[in-house]
């Protein structure tokens, strides 16, 4: 199955006696737009943390692009091509917007590239970062300090910074929570473009159903650490398990 980019099989994660993930198996195909839903505390973020390497799964395997990722630190996974945005934006606050993007550029995208001089390297970083910012509609903010951005700008910075790591798989962790309808559409447009024009596989975790359902080609629903449903958006909303998970008994 060469068209599978990310394969989680039987992933288990426990905290003390509490089982946060119970034998979760999920496949994400290359180029896919994949939605991950579930009520609060259902294990979505835990799963993302296991995939990105922030947490170590206690059981099961996670394979990315044919590589078993057991024991890999998050930065190594980023270099393989997994990059995430954070639910609560975590900009590098002492840096400008451009400098924020320069970090993944230097550490991932341009890693190993030899430049003639430090100036040439700085130029390459600047041009690459500007290209991404332009695409995000944030070019005018390039030299603004990241500590002074608005909510929507912070969300865009999260995505732009993740893009600077040149990922194959982008995990968007509730990038739209708390935004207005038109802002949600703006972020959706960006994600669609990244997927369609740059061929980036995207996993979207989202509470805003309207957004996930419009965006995703396939949706998985977690509840209490278990996968309870997997289907296309129009089918998953009709799934009795999903309905029960969201509405309760």
């Amino acid at each position, binding site marked *: 199955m060469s068209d599978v980019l990310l394969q989680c099989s039987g992933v288990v994660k426990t905290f003390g006696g509490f089982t946060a993930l119970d034998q979760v198996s999920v496949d994400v195909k290359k180029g896919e737009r994949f939605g991950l839903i579930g009520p609060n505390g259902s294990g979505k973020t835990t799963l993302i943390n296991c995939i*990105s390497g*922030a947490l170590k799964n206690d059981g099961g395997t996670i394979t990315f692009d044919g590589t078993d990722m057991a024991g890999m*630190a*998050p*930065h190594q996974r*980023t*270099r393989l091509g997994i*990059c*995430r945005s*954070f639910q609560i934006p*975590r*900009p*590098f*606050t*002492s*840096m400008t917007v451009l400098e924020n993007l*320069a*970090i*993944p550029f*230097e*550490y*991932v995208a341009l*890693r190993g590239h030899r430049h003639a001089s*430090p100036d040439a390297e700085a130029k390459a970083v600047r041009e690459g970062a500007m290209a991404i910012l332009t695409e995000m509609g944030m070019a005018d903010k390039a030299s603004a300090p990241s500590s002074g951005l608005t909510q929507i700008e912070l969300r865009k910075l999260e995505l732009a*910074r*993740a893009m*600077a*790591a040149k990922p194959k798989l982008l995990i968007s962790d509730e990038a739209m929570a708390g935004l207005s309808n038109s802002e949600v559409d703006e972020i959706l447009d960006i994600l669609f473009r990244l997927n369609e024009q740059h061929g980036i596989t995207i996993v979207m975790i989202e509470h805003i159903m309207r957004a996930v359902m419009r965006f995703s080609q396939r949706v998985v629903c977690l509840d209490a650490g278990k996968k309870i449903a997997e289907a296309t958006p129009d089918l998953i909303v009709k799934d009795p398990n999903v309905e029960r998970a969201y509405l309760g008994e």
Partner: protein
Amino acid sequence: MKISVFWIGVAVALVVALLTPHVVTNEFYLRTAYTVLQFVVLATAWNILGGYGGYVNFGSAGFFAIGAYSAVFIYKLFPLFQVPDYMIFVMLPLGGVVAAVIGLGTGYLTLRLRGVYFSIATLALAVVLQTLVTNWHFVGGARGASILPPQTVPIFSTWGEFLFVLMAILAIASLAVARYIERSWIGRGLAAIRDNEEAAECMGVPTLKLKLIGCTVSGFLFGVAGAPLPYYVNYIEPVSAFNLVYAVNALAMPMIGGATTWIGPLLGAVVLGTAQEVARVTISSEMNLLIVGVLLVFFVIAAPDGFVGLARKYLGNRKSR
């Protein structure tokens, strides 16, 4: 062009340092200058981890004293007053390496300990090291050890002159190291760690590796700063070698000077170090310490980015490097 300005400065500083003993004949001034230069090294060492990486080390005095006691250890290996003349050149790297190894150890602590827990652990480490030294009779234990430098002084005519030039070279070298780190991938990665460690790791920054580099380099610099201390004071005991004064100054000087660039610790150390030496001579040694405490509290509240921050604000020059 910028690079050459810095290196011309280094060359000038070196020449000045080498010529000073020929011009300044009063040993008192050389000893005062030694103290200030020692603070330059300590402040720079602290800043590599604290200012660049955001990991606050409260145990600087421990690393410094370990450097000093490594030298005492070598000294004690030889029979009374029989220490070879050039032994200082062994003491210096040994002090640095031992402190660097301990620094590397604290680096691994950062795997589990973030923020304040790391800071408290470094303080704890300093006390544990002090207790070990206090109970280690070979290096003098609690009573301390008398150290007499050899009769012959390497290169210069007195130990005062030699130690001054040595510390000047160490200060210049540590500034160059700090500047290199700041402007390289290491410094940019450390800044990302300081701002948000999880995000840095997810953006491909090998955070552990950078922290280990930071801790080791910082420890090494603390150690070499401490290694000449026994020859400088001639009598060393744990309470003064592990004195909190070193830890407070190592932290206060970069915070007051400006912790995000190599110039900050230099400014902080020169201004505060000189002020303290003047106050120590003219008022009292306690009063000079009070000044450090008050200035530290004042600056962290009123001018969080120190002298460098003030300069940028009033000169309107955002990139004063």
